[in-house]
């Protein structure tokens, strides 16, 4: 069974490319969101296995969305992404409760799958 995925990013070009790439890479994309509040609402409704979450969003940022999605451990696996480097965000990536971080340029099905099935950050 392919893991279900929600893509959250405000750039339509990135969303459509990421959808193609990750569907080819073994995921089933069940939804897309363009901002943080929309992401929280859609994630609660669709209950995807994984959320690919851009940090820079027009309303609340990706860290805040991650915290809201945690839901006491029953929430989806959250993987953050950004055009910036992980080092630009320091410890916030680890502290917010996300499973991991993938720079946008290095996004692939394999990179995302690497975070599944492990509880700790890869």
């Amino acid at each position, binding site marked *: 069974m392919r893991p279900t995925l929600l893509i959250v990013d405000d750039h339509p*070009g*990135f969303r459509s*490319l990421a959808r193609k*790439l990750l569907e*080819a890479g073994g995921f089933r994309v069940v939804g897309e969101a363009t901002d943080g509040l929309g992401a929280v609402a859609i994630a609660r409704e669709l209950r995807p296995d994984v959320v690919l979450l851009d940090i820079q969003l027009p309303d609340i940022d990706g860290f805040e969305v991650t915290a809201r999605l945690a839901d006491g451990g029953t929430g989806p696996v959250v993987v953050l992404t950004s055009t910036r480097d992980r080092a630009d965000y320091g410890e916030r990536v680890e502290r917010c409760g996300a499973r991991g971080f993938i720079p946008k340029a290095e*996004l692939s099905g394999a990179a995302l799958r690497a975070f599944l099935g492990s509880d700790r950050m890869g």
Partner: protein
Amino acid sequence: MSPRLRLAIALAALVAGLVNFVLLVRGGDGRPRPLAYLLITVVGVSWSFVAAGLVAWTRRPVNRTGALMVAVGLSYALLGLFFNAMVLAATPASFALWYLANSLPSGVIAHLLAVFPDGRATTRLQRVFVVANYVATVPLAVAQLLLVPLDRLGCAGCPDDLLVLGDGRPAGDAVLTVSNLSYVALGGLLLWIMLVRWRQASGPRQRSMAPVAVVAIVLVVAYVIREALETLVTSPSLLGALNLAVIVILMLWPLAFLAGLARMRLDRSAVGDLAVQLGEPLPPGRLEQVLARALHDPTLQLAYWLPDRDGFVDAAGRPVELPAEGGDRAVTILRHDGDPIAAMLHDAALDDDPELVRAVAATARMTIENERLQAEVRAQLEEVRASRARIVEFGDAERRRVERNLHDGAQQRLVNISLALGIARSQVGVASDREMAVALEEAAAELRLAVAELRELARGIHPVILSEAGLGPALAALADRSPVPVTVTAVPPGRLPSRVEETAYYVASEALANAAKHAKATAVSISARRLDGDLLVEVGDDGVGGADPDGSGLRGLADRVAALDGRLRVHSPTGKGTCITVELPCGS
């Protein structure tokens, strides 16, 4: 007041006093009051009020206190003439005339005390009191004349009555009691008004008012006691003594007033002390305290004129607003050749002695001028500090903007290219050549957009055409790219110093951005030309106007222009478009 009027009043009071004096001394035994009492009243009180009133009137013509004092003095002289006429004629009619005239001076005195020292009623209570006091005393006197046997009112040789109803006693007693109680009430009200005024008076005013206020309060208290006792006690000697006490205190009041004026005069010695203190160098900001002490006004504030700012600042360079006219605060402006150099903000009471304020200001002029220059330098320093901080802040904000543009624009596109190429690679050998071509073309299109965005961003940081070809071509290129139609009406020939060209370009590009973004303009015109060694740049649009010169955008422009010693003016009436004019010295 004119000298002629002053002389006429003085002569009238003098002559009336002398006439009254002669008539009283030569008069028979028909007098209802002791001679000493009468002489003090119609000669002593009259002369002292007229004399002190004329001094006050001359010194401070706007303040009605002097005129009211003169009125008190003249009304007593007039009362004396009525009295002597009554004694000579010895008829009930002349007695009635004198009796009615009695209420005039007390009305004016109560008026004077209620509005002292401003000379005008400042509250509703004061106005009501003044009017009520004039109005109430007349009907009371009329009722007394009609209902009380005249001999009880003091007309020894008079027939029994004018119009005494019935046997006269109960009605007469009632009228006298009501009258006395009314006088007690009015006196008490006056006392209250005076105490409130005293408590509200400022330091300098309390200082000059102190002797006057003390005597006035004693006077009113004595008057109230006399009226109260009149209803209770019938001992003629006690009442006579109280009457004498009241009238002597009344005569002293103008002297107390003159003492208050003299006290201000004595302050002239403070000017000498001030001159000595100013002989030593003062630490900055100290001058204010020294002047405050010389004028006995701890609230005194000094403000220095800054021609650059077209306004006043304090010793630390902070802007100072002058108080509106007619309030508790007054302003004395010090000028040099007609131009303001400084302003003293002080208690309005000091306006009572403008010469003293002027003398103090003149003595401190050199020091004030010196402090003004220091304040000017400090104000400029503060402005430079603020603009330096703004320039640094602006630089930071600009770098943040470039970083954000790179991430959201070109870098996002490059990421997309990387993803698209990743997808294409995964399709090698799987997809058809045609599908591969489509995927690669997508990546190529994204790459072209990324290149265009990077070029735009680089031009935003520094337009190459400006350094390569100069201001004219750069403005033309700016106009070509603008979303709002732009007409460039004039450009300077040849090249200018690069700092000038860059600032002029920056002004035009910011003004253009504002016109498109905030002003909703449909047409913009730009002109840049040489004018007497300056570069004059004007950018006008037909937008909504109402631009805020202190908003961050225009503030940033002003700072950049100020860094080149240039001047920026913004004319932006609401609904009438915006015109930004900049003059930049070319330093050639």
